[in-house]
């Protein structure tokens, strides 16, 4: 047995003397009980929910360890800490609730894991303008509970709601299951407060819109911690809906169902939830519907009269498309089970490798991207299942969510890399975007050049300008070639 498990993709570490200096200063800034080199803290902040971490955990290994964990209590403390980190050239990896699925919170270059969970307060509700100011470390489910208690909803329900934070939502540009009505996190965010690596604290104006130059605070939405630390945000909220209408349909095929959804979105109807499952996932999630047809579940909520009109418009189009009305019970079942991902833990224990890969398509390639990705995934030796559903829809396209499970035997990591290579190549060949809402993190960075083209160099220039010492979450968002993982 070892004091700390072996690391697998630790690229570098900061000299201990520098870390000791940082720790001494950090003790002064945040208090000695909020700075730790305790092995339990280092180990706990070594990982997130990237599936590869689970493979390593079963083997008794961890991806990479921070050298210190620091828990700031306010924005000013973060400012002082980042100034110090820049001066001493100590890498800083922000850490929220650790639910990221692409390794974005792994401190591959050691340094400091900056854990934001102490900054977990709902600061202020503006009931007149329907906004809330909230610290970035607050857990998503607690945020929603606090709002519900006051008669509001945040409208943001990622599957990770209960294990993710406000800061995490913003940093990875998250999308919730009710997003067709309430929008994604970038639509929900009015303004952000953030700290840059030089210690600058800045925030955007909390007004509906500005034409005062680019929204610099919004630059941090999706930045995954590479530009600075999001400390709080002003988010839009909604009164708790007066009524909810649930309806489900089945279609003979995915293509016909997609066309029906496209037509629904053209009418201006905005159901909160629109989820279309391929036949395989229909059979898995709703066995009573069989595995030959494709299930569409819809949840419409808001004011009763508007809902009634939306429901009528949707029903007319669905029936005209040849859909079969299956009633509300399948949506109720989904609502009950939507946070249950227990099957993942069980499959990992049985030696499976699994992941979900979400991409963004327009309507013209929504179906072809599904077909291409499924074909490529199934062609990888060891793949047992490659299925998909569309979890978010827009007037201009849809988010496609593929699930892949394989039993590759001994070389699980090689299999993992092969399925991703297959999926990303197929996605890019179809002209789809490589991520819809999980983000880039460590793992997906290798396709950032193909995704952005020359845009990636623009991102690098901004990074260089804001973070010349490259202290903020180094090695993520595809800005550097991964030395250990990607090779």
């Amino acid at each position: 047995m070892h004091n700390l498990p072996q690391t697998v993709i630790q690229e570098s570490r900061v000299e201990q003397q520098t870390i000791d200096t940082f720790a001494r200063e950090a003790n002064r800034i945040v208090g000695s009980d909020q700075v730790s080199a305790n092995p339990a803290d280092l180990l706990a902040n070594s990982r997130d929910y990237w599936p590869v971490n689970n493979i390593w955990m079963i083997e008794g290994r961890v991806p990479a360890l921070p050298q210190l964990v620091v828990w700031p209590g306010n924005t000013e403390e973060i400012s002082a800490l980042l100034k110090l980190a820049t001066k001493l050239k100590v890498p800083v990896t922000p850490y929220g609730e650790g639910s990221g699925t692409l390794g974005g919170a792994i401190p591959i270059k050691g340094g400091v894991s900056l854990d934001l969970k102490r900054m977990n307060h709902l600061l202020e509700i503006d009931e007149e303008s329907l906004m809330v100011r909230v610290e970035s470390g607050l857990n998503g489910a607690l945020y929603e509970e606090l709002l519900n208690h006051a008669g509001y909803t945040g409208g943001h329900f990622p599957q990770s709601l209960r294990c993710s934070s406000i800061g995490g939502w913003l940093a990875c540009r998250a999308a919730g299951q009710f997003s067709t009505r309430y929008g994604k996190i970038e639509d929900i965010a009015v303004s952000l407060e953030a700290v840059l690596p030089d210690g600058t604290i800045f925030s955007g104006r909390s007004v509906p819109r500005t034409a005062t130059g680019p929204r610099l605070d919004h630059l941090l939405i999706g930045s995954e911690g590479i530009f600075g630390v999001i400390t709080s945000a002003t988010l839009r909220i909604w009164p708790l809906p007066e009524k909810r209408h649930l309806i489900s349909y089945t279609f003979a095929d995915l293509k016909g169902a997609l066309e029906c959804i496209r037509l629904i979105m053209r009418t201006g109807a905005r159901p909160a939830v629109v989820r279309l499952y391929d036949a395989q996932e229909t059979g898995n999630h709703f066995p009573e519907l069989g595995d030959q047809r494709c299930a569409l579940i819809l949840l419409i909520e808001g004011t009763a009269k508007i809902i009634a009109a939306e429901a009528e418009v949707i029903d007319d189009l669905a029936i005209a498309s040849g859909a079969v009305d299956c009633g509300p019970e399948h949506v109720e079942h989904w609502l009950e089970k939507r946070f249950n991902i227990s099957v993942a833990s069980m499959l990992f224990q049985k030696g499976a490798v699994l992941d979900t890969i979400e991409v963004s398509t327009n309507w013209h390639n929504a179906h072809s991207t599904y077909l291409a990705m499924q074909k490529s995934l199934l062609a990888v030796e060891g793949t047992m299942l490659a299925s998909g559903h569309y979890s978010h829809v827009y007037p201009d396209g849809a988010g496609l969510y593929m699930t892949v499970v394989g039993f590759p035997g001994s070389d699980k990591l090689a299999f993992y890399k092969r399925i991703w290579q297959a999926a990303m190549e197929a996605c890019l060949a179809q002209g789809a975007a490589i991520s819809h809402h999980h983000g880039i993190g460590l793992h997906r960075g290798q396709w950032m050049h193909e995704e952005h083209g020359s845009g990636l160099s623009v991102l690098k220039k901004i990074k260089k300008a804001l973070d010349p010492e490259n202290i903020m979450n180094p090695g993520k968002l595809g800005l550097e070639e991964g030395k250990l993982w990607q090779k």
Partner: protein
Amino acid sequence: MAEVNMEQLLNCALCPNMCRCDCPVLQALGHEKVAPAGKARFAAMHQQDHLELSNEIIEAIANCLGCRGCTVLCPFPELNLCDELLYARTPDSVDQSGQLPAWEPYLANLKKYGSPYGQKPPFGGKSSRGSDVLYFVGCTALANHPESVAVIGKLLQQAGVNYQLIDEDCCGYPAETWGDPNLAHSLAAENIRKFVECGAKKLVTCCPECWLIFTERYKKWGFELPLEIVAAPAYFLGLVKEGLLKPAAIEQTKLSYHDPCIWARTAKLTKEPRQLLESIPGITIEEPLFSGELTHCCGGGRMFQLSFPKTAEEIAKRRLSEFTVGAGIVTACPFCREGLSQENNARIIDLLELLANACCS
């Protein structure tokens, strides 16, 4: 020694933890190492010989209140993480380390006095030897509120119930919590001997942790209980329903009820305490942000007030913030009473003392 269910422990360790929002320790400290999966990962890695059980790791795993808050949203129905964590850090043999230095004085007290708090104070109630009802006070109520014995005794007398008190020993739960299962078993054996000797048919306890250990652990430890174990809120509600207790109006009318974790989630006693409150004329109950089975722990579970006092205080502070300012807070657990009182003494009221006030004045 209790066996760890590795499949269930790994289920948690491999999960992103949809229960994080319901772990009071994590929410109070904000430290990842005390997240349910954080603790489960340490425990699983230790069980698989990948991680040494150092004091730092024991301390992290032991940062569990046993409140079972994590079970509310857990997708694994057979997983009781609180117990798996406890078993995983319990040494297999006496020569192995599994205890933190901070626990040693309490374990020494348990060995010497049969209570983690040291010498037990004299009992205040009128015990009738040979009665069918045994009123089991519990170490924590006895140490912190010895006067409650007389108050509850008075309530029983008012209902015409003859009861007896015994020279009780700690139920054993603290010893198990502090990594000494052998001591837990010997305390249990001594209690069982006294239960048999006193001849009572029914044991009524106000302490949810005693109730839990009697009903869940004693059988697992191989002891046969010679009497029925009854939770005090249910027992006293029965007395009210039978008309043996007739509560009258009291001065306070607006009250909130804090559900103790074990009563709410394990004993499923959420309606009974409220019905008891409502039996007092004029009482209105104002629910806190989280109540019933969704209650949040006060910070006192698994002897946290002794093991990790600073964390216990933080958890209590968070729990108190979930109540409406101004309403008195009623609870039915000596740990909750103690924990929540740390913040503001005046507002915390014991359910049975309130009932006694309504029935006996």
